[in-house]
């Protein structure tokens, strides 16, 4: 099961414009991460995410949203709940093809749901 989720995150990370993808617990604790090297800018984004995820999910739940995109510094961050207890975060460069990445994210979420749901 873990291998399947790792593989699917690898595939998401291989998409052009994706800088990192992280599977979080809904309380903001990261479970799985895909990125390259030790990147300070990414750590900053992760700290921000850790603080925000709970609030964002609460807001999304109230508004009935399936996913949401934030602009943080020069990054685009897509937050999409994957199961009742996990949330998938995709960090993209500004010029990434958001439409394409959201379609691929939906596919990844479907597979995560099959594994964990």
């Amino acid at each position, binding site marked *: 099961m873990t291998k399947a989720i790792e593989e699917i995150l690898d*595939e998401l990370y*291989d*998409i*052009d414009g994706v800088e990192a993808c992280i599977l979080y617990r809904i309380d903001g604790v990261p479970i799985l991460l895909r990125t390259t090297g030790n990147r300070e800018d990414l750590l900053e984004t992760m700290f921000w995410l850790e603080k925000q995820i709970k609030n964002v999910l609460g807001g999304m739940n109230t508004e009935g949203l399936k996913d949401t995109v934030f602009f943080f510094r020069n990054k685009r961050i897509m937050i999409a709940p994957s199961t009742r207890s996990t949330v998938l975060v995709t960090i993209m460069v500004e010029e990434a*093809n958001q439409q*394409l990445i959201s*379609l*691929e994210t939906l*596919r990844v979420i479907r597979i995560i749901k099959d594994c964990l749901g």
Partner: protein
Amino acid sequence: MRSVTLFSNKKDPKDAARHILEQARSRLDFEPDLALFYATLKYNGKYQSMLDIFQEEYGGIPQIGASVDGVIYPDDMRMDGAALVLCEDDEAEIRVDGIKEKGALESAEKLAKRVKCEKGAIVLHFPLVHVPDPLKSAEFYAKGYYYSKICKGASPEKQKEFAGKFANYCEKENIFYLPPTILNIFSEQTNHKIPILGINVLHTQVRFNSPSIFCNFEDIGGGIAALTIEKENVNAVYDDIFPEKGNTVEETRSVVDKEFKVIRKFKANFEKNILISLDGMPPMQAVKDLIYAPEEKTEETLKHLEKGDYNLTFRVSWVTKF
């Protein structure tokens, strides 16, 4: 026909090709007779390095393919990556020919003469619109702008002359391939005896040197490739989400009136594939403020727009005597 589909979306094109080959080695239990290769724009400009890797392994068999926006195969849809389909058919004789020369129609005519098929089917791969390199693209925009400028205020005859010149330029530079014309060239060459299928490649994102057509492990850019399947009892089935065209212009008009909500009708002035004017106005100006929402659905539409989950579709129908 048996087939196996292999997919990879690794960042590096060579890694992706090798990943596909690894999967092929473990999954393939037949000798392939045909390779189909489709890849997304992620590998734009690097397709040849992938094709070279495939050629080392499957160089002896015909290959056809193109750059695409995504691939759909059983139970999955991928919008990023490359797919190799290996096929086997002992009863069929399969060939792939391609051409990349100046002039879309000239290329099609030359290739049609080369392609021979007595029974079976021909599957063509060609771009619908090919975006050339930056220099040629700049030339295309400059020419378009120039002809558009001098058309303003010119007499209808002069407008037709300038539009004709621009259409000839687009044809010579292989920028537009007109599917009905291309298909007809091949159909005439085979005496209308066998089905001709056309895969018109077009990307939703504009990139230089795209789309690309692949023929026998070579990236032929904006050329045309033909896959010939010589086999008994090959049947082509045609279906469309749009209604059938009428036999006359009037009949087609009434079909469009019946099947679609016609917002406004224009009298169009064409020369070859260039639209000169709509009701005497420049085309962009004529359709600029054309907005329509069915009354009974306005509220519902606005509700969706507020939530940002509404897709708007515009459709322009040209009723011609073609």
